[in-house]
């Protein structure tokens, strides 16, 4: 019986909810009196991935690698330069603005900073009900009843519904943000560094809440973060980005045990272990800084900092290939990496 359910769930999981193909977002660099475009910042440069129904896809990378831009482009909060985002088979990027409005409730977002993401002049109940009001759902009374229900569900007392954002703590504010997204009954929630601005203890509470909500509401998460331990805790699969490109996609266990891209390996080795007695020998210190996304290196973008780089790396850009089942990597030397991982 249990097995059957498990099987059913995995079948459901294999269904693809969102597919991103060749997504690009270039920001123009303008200079001079006449605001001539003198170059482009390639924030997101030709990335493709998919999210299965019901899973949590972690998206990691260092600051400025295009994680947030990816999330914003999927939600069409900023317009992409090229590419497609298929949600249940519908290309969101080709929809008109009016048609896109219909899909907005289905794709929601939780923001990083719980202090600036809530309108300081609105009461908690109005912030949470904003989406319902915009979509003209329910009467005033019905909306507030729903607000009460969802506040309760995210762990806020409905007695606080008349308070203003400044009267809440950071964790409580983030719960308001979650309730605001949840009340629209979404399928996909983009958590854009949703816990990065919170204390570690509060982080754990919010992560557990997100976990519970996923089960109860059948949610799919795109979890953007820079903290690997957080991503490891919550994700099913992990996408690693570097300078606007995806370098590796894998199941989280696979990624942590068998990273096939040198950058992933360096990133994992930089993850702190909260134990002072552990002496780490395997730490990989990368040389140099992240190059500018306005003028990325030729070939593989990681080659100037890579300890495994060979001449081919600066000439030919490695494509993102599925080298093992469900394990994608963009490196010429993934076979050598397997040997190294031993």
């Amino acid at each position: 019986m249990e097995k059957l359910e498990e099987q059913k769930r995995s079948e459901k999981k294999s269904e693809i909810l969102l597919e991103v193909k060749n997504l690009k977002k270039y920001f123009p660099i303008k200079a001079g009196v006449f605001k001539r475009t003198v170059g482009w910042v390639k924030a997101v440069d030709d990335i493709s991935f998919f999210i299965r129904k019901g899973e949590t896809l972690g998206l990691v990378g260092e600051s400025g690698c295009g994680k947030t831009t990816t999330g914003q482009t999927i939600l069409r909060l900023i317009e992409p330069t090229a590419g497609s985002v298929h949600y249940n088979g519908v290309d969101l990027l080709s929809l008109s603005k009016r048609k896109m409005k219909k899909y907005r409730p289905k794709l929601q977002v939780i923001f990083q900073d719980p202090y600036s993401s809530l309108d300081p002049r609105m009461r908690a109940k109005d912030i949470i009900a904003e989406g319902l009001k915009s979509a003209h759902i329910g009467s005033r009374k019905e909306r507030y009843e729903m607000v009460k229900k969802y506040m309760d569900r995210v762990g806020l007392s409905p007695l606080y519904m008349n308070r203003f954002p400044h009267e809440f703590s950071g964790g409580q504010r983030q719960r308001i943000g979650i309730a605001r997204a949840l009340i629209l009954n979404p399928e996909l929630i983009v958590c854009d560094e949703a816990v990065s601005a919170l204390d570690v203890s509060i982080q754990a509470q919010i992560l557990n809440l997100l976990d519970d909500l996923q089960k109860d509401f059948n949610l799919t998460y795109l979890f953007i973060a820079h903290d690997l331990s957080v991503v490891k805790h919550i994700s099913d699969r992990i996408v690693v980005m570097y300078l606007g490109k995806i370098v590796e996609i894998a199941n989280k266990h696979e990624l942590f045990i068998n990273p096939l891209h040198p950058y992933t390996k360096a990133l994992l080795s930089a993850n702190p272990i909260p134990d002072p007695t552990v002496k780490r020998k395997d730490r990989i210190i990368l040389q140099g800084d992240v190059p500018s996304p306005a003028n990325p290196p030729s070939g593989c973008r990681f080659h100037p900092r890579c300890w495994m780089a060979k001449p081919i790396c600066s000439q030919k850009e490695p494509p993102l290939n599925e080298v093992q089942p469900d394990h994608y990597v963009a490196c010429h030397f993934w076979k050598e990496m397997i040997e190294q991982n031993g």
Partner: protein
Amino acid sequence: MKSITIEKRGKLRDFIARRKPIIEDWKHTLYLWKSTKLAMIGTVIIVIFILIAIFAPIIVPYDPISSNMSARLQPPSWDHLFGTDQFGRDIFSRVIVGSRIELWIIFLVSLISGGLGTFLGVVAGYFGKFVDEIIMRITDMFLAFPSLVLAMAFAAALGPSLTNTIIAISVVGWTVFARLARAEAMKIKKQPYIEAIRAVGAGNSRIMFLHVLPMCLSPVLVQLTLRMGTIILTAAGLGFLGLGVRPPLPEWGSMVSDGRSYLVAQWWISTFPGIAIAFVVLGFNFLGDGIRDIMDPRLRR
């Protein structure tokens, strides 16, 4: 059952607790107000001005419009506190009734120019790009003229009357508010909460008028108070030049103008309305400065 009683008891306490920071804030504002002397003086002058305007029909001893040739050009006395003009009208009565006209002009001009300016400014700042370019270039065109000259041109083109004075001053004055509101809107639209509101599906007009506009109002209101003195001066200037309110109506500027040719022998005709203008303009300037200082976050706390 238990939870209900807690909820009921909690309601009143919650109500007070919730408003406590707001009450404290107001107390602090009042304290700053009292300690800023100029703001207090300004407030007193403006309150007196408004009270006089409200109770004008009760205060006036004589009819301010109809002429009385037997009592013309009388100097100030107990009968005629400010004297009489060349048509024998009591100047004190005319100054008192004139306050109503000035107040009416200030009110309508503030409403029209403040409203128009804020609306256009928010639209320009929110949409940016070419909408912004068009609106701001129009604003620049208005700002390129000296404001009194432009107001004169409008008043002359429309013909002298109270309504046209108000229109002329409003058309000249909205640019300041448009620039202010635009700057504020540009700042606010970049806030993450605006992005959050867009993500839950709110449209442009909803975001613009329900979320961006309210945040733009407080600097606009401060500026409006500061501009009220200028509004009176412009109205009086137009009146003085004969482009403003028509003669029988006791507008202060035109009253100063009326006494012009008698100034050497009968000084009181021009002087008293002039003093009234000076006091009210001073009052508004003090009040505006005071409000600006009180709102200044560096002064607060």
